[in-house]
């Protein structure tokens, strides 16, 4: 079978076997780092999108009143008003037990006395349209419940989403640098191979071999080395990614849990060795043809 355009007989022209030089191992290390950076970037992008889409549509209404009767009265009025608003998909008052459970880690059981005045809290979910008319909802809420205070989750999530996006971009930059470094490694490998096989190349040239014929011998070898190194590096990276995923799930945080790899990201990761092979093939071809172009 002709692989990468060189026949079995042609392949004998370059005698070294697979893994003969450092090239596959260098590519394996680069692929390991590239895959980790790519996974990080893709997970960050996915998390930023999810946080922006889901948590950004959450608001919490707090009613801070010392008098429990007035507090409940305003809370009911606020809940009823919010439920009637266009764009509000869910309104849920947080019960006293749930509030105490949230506070227990900070105050302890002793701090949660029965007469401790806790604010009334209402979780509100908005649709995209509701998000757009948040100003109108806030104005209506002030009329129905003058002591209500509305906390927009998006206002404190925005810097976080921005940070996550920046980390995603950083990961993208690292991937780009790794691609450049891989290409440079391929150039060095191709030049070394050219020097090693100079005698064979000269003889072939004088017998009428074209630059393309000679480049084909090198590009095939280097692409296979890159493919092998790529698969090796990816296997290592996938192991690390799965391990990290397991650790993050154990944390049980909604925020940390939002950092996950979608299936599309897995496809991108699995395609990386193939892309490394194609990159190596292209770079090797260009390098060899350029070097040969300087000879007669």
């Amino acid at each position, binding site marked *: 079978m002709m692989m990468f355009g060189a*026949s079995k*007989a*042609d392949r*004998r*022209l370059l*005698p070294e076997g697979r893994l003969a030089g450092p090239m596959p191992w260098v590519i394996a290390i680069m692929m390991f780092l590239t895959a980790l950076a790519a996974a990080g970037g893709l997970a960050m992008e996915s998390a930023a999108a999810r946080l922006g889409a889901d948590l950004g549509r959450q608001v919490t209404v707090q009613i801070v009143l010392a008098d429990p009767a007035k507090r409940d009265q305003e809370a009911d009025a606020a809940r009823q008003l919010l439920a009637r608003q266009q764009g509000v998909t869910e309104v849920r008052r947080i019960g006293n037990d749930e509030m105490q459970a949230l506070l227990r880690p900070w105050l302890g059981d002793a701090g949660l006395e029965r007469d401790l005045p806790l604010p009334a809290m209402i979780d509100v979910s908005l649709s995209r349209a509701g998000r757009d008319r948040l100003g109108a909802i806030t104005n209506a809420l002030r009329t129905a419940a003058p002591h209500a205070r509305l906390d927009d989750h998006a206002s404190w999530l925005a810097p976080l989403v921005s940070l996550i996006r920046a980390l995603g971009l950083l990961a993208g930059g690292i991937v780009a640098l790794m691609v450049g470094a891989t290409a440079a490694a391929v150039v060095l490998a191709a030049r070394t191979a050219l020097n090693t096989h100079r*005698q*064979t190349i*000269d*003889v*072939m*040239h*004088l*017998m*009428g*071999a*074209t630059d393309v*014929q000679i480049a084909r011998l090198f590009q095939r070898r280097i692409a296979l080395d890159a493919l092998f190194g790529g698969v090796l590096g990816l296997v290592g990276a996938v192991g690390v990614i799965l391990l990290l995923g397991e650790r993050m799930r154990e944390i049980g945080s909604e925020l940390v849990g939002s950092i996950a790899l979608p299936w599309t990201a897995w496809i991108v990761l699995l395609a990386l060795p193939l892309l490394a092979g194609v990159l190596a093939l292209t770079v090797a071809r260009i390098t060899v043809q350029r070097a040969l*172009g300087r000879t*007669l």
Partner: protein
Amino acid sequence: MAGIVQFENVGLRYGTGAETLSDLSFSLAQGGFYFLTGPSGAGKTSLLKMLYLAQRPSRGSIRLFGEDVVQLRRTRLPGFRRRIGMVFQDFRLIPHLSAFDNIALPLRIAGVDERDLVTPVREMLAWVGLADRASARPPTLSGGEQQRVAIARAVIGRPEMLVADEPTGNVDPEMAARLLHLFDALNTLGTTIIVATHDIHLLSRVASANVMRLDRGQLQDPTGALRYPPRPDFGQEARP
């Protein structure tokens, strides 16, 4: 016969030194047999390099197969090189390839199908007396055997022109005679043969051959047979 090689005022200089070859003007006829002689350092190998397109001249014009190869685009050179067979002084066999694969190399480069090259390569191996050494690699062959492989590789593609640099330097007299006979047979089939040699005994082995003598980078052509452009009165008496 038409000229297959035409040199006109060709000079060759390596770097900034003196010219290795100066003012070469000659014409070689298609189907001719030529010996190139001269003392060591006369420039024989440099002249051969220009003939098999491994070297461009510093000045002058060279026409091969009717085309100016000095101005020829690099991408067209492989097509010309496939029409030329070469036997190098140092053989230049590929050490990790078997004798079979070394001889098959020009055919593979020319794109001959694997099934179609087995018979001619085996025939060529038999002809040079190496039928039982087909799978041997050059480092395991003697100097003479390597030279025979190199010659077989040069002629397997039936080149229009064969350029050989000291092709009998490492073989015994009997094998030298056989190789010359092979060259003569190829010449009879129409291949132009150019053989650079120190061995003055070879010159008389091919009756129809012309002798080109290089001395200190200049071609000595006492008969005028190689002169280019030809002498106006140069006629049938001079071969070719």
